[in-house]
């Protein structure tokens, strides 16, 4: 007690100053928040998913609020990986952020090319493969649900980069463990879960879907019990793999729960919208929790709930 707890999070070759990251696609490119959040105090900033060429994304409405959650069908709108490397990355580095670049693609080849470009850039700490975005017509979704496809993408990207590789997986195919095992076998050094759950919302008065693309991905506090279930299950089948928990975290307690279930790090998504300063509040809340309860480090509480 009284001593400052060790907040470091070691995810294989990737060591973060603390285990709290902001999730892909929910913090913009990161630079948008610079005035409100000191990016250098976050464990890492995961960028929005980057594709080979600029993507316009889906038509609006793209978002709908649901009970304690939201649906989104942004459709990976982004300026493309080149613009990211030239314009955004330098500003993120300047702000002191640890940058994890999220990689997306419609084909295996696209994943490889985006990953290769990012590996050549200066200042990317790791790659997170978005194998699970449900908003793409092809690609994303299937990769992360079927273990064989997951393995193929991971293995191909593994060839193209020396950066630490995180595979982000989807809960939409049921149990995640098989895909997680396949990803690790193919060279992923950490698993991130969960991406959004498939959902729809209807406007009863207009008698139409609330999203232009009908189906979207569900996120926010509503999904926390599901995300924690999957984290805990994958922890059982992969006891030694660094896991990153994501889904519904909006308080320090939520983050601590994931760590107690076995997460090495935790990502904050939707909650950033609701409370732009939440990620740093969670870093502080985690520190306070460790201090109050006399734990010397984050590691000391990981997996205490089994």
């Amino acid at each position, binding site marked *: 007690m009284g001593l400052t707890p060790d907040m470091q999070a070691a995810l294989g070759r990737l060591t973060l100053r603390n285990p709290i990251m902001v999730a892909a696609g929910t913090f913009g490119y990161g630079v948008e928040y610079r*005035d409100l959040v000191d990016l250098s105090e976050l464990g890492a900033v995961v960028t929005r998913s980057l594709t080979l060429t600029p993507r316009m994304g889906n038509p609006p409405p793209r978002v709908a609020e649901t009970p304690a959650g939201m649906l989104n069908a*942004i459709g990976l*709108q982004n300026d493309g990986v080149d613009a990211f490397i030239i314009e955004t990355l330098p500003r993120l580095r300047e702000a002191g952020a640890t940058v994890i670049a999220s990689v997306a693609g419609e084909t295996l080849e696209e994943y490889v090319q985006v990953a290769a470009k990012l590996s050549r850039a200066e200042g990317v700490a790791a790659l997170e493969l978005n194998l699970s975005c449900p908003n793409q017509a092809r690609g994303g979704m299937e990769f992360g649900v079927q273990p064989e496809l997951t393995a193929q993408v991971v293995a191909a990207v593994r060839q193209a980069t020396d950066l630490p590789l995180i595979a982000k997986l989807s809960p939409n195919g049921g149990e995640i463990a098989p895909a997680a095992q396949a990803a690790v076998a193919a060279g992923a050094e950490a698993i991130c879960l969960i991406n959004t759950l498939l959902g729809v919302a209807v406007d009863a008065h207009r008698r139409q879907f609330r999203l232009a693309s009908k189906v979207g991905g569900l996120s926010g506090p509503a999904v926390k019990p599901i995300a924690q279930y999957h984290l805990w299950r994958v922890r059982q089948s992969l006891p030694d793999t660094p896991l990153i928990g994501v889904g519904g975290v909006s308080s320090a307690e939520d983050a601590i729960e994931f760590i107690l279930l076995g997460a090495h790090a935790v990502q904050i998504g939707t909650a950033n919208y609701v409370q732009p300063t939440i990620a740093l509040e969670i870093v502080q809340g985690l520190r306070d929790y460790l201090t109050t309860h006399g734990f010397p480090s984050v590691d000391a509480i990981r997996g205490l709930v089994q």
Partner: protein
Amino acid sequence: MTLPVAAQVHFVPMTRYELPAVVVEHRQRATNQYELILHAPPIAARAAPGQFVMLRPMRTHAPLWRRPYSILRANPDKGVFSVFYSVQSAFTELLALKPIGSTVQTLGPLGSYFVPVRTARRHILVAGGVGAPPLYFFASRLMPTLQAGEQILILAGARRRDLLVGLDEFRALGAEVRIATDDGSHGYKGYVTDLLQHVLETDPTDAAVYACGPNRMLQVVAHICLERGAPCQVSLDAPMPCGMGVCLGCAVKVATPDGGVWYKRACVEGPVFRAEELVWD
């Protein structure tokens, strides 16, 4: 405080604040309409007409999102600003319970704002229903800056008489106000866009139009103005999960200089857009 006349409407890097604003007054204005007056000096100092704040009355998981509210007035000297809202669903029910002295987590001021068209002599403000607040703020800031011969005309529309917002206040500014209701319960029976059409028929050249209301209304306003060559700024409604440019949920389709289309953000590049920029599907 005067408006930065030369500012670009479509993108202005902005200073915004995230703070717990104290409720200094919470006035019921009609059966289920309230004006909420908040103490938040930095926001009050910088608020421009058309801009909005994102409010969070309590730490609830449902409603989850903050909601955007247009700034109705701002008094930099007293450090207060206010928003006007009608109680519609869970969020606004919660907001209405906030007592004086409690705090509302507030992010702002956000977004683009109405920019006076200095070449125009007739400033026509078209307000649909709860679209009135930002236009009132705009009128109140514009009025003292008018040159001889310049005037403000308010066209206010709603479905029914009791859904008209802020008429007294517009009149108190000394502006001319014309009214339309769908059911004819007050003023002209029909759409407020009919009034606009009529006004522009005579002479569109000296007019500038500023509009806020349902998107369907704005589309008609934009169409009328483009046809007649009147400069037009519209404040769009869009779902806004974050209000600060990161989620891309508030996408608005715009024409790009190269002849293509792209999505801009209603919360950063908007909510006020120049009509000629917008692509309506």
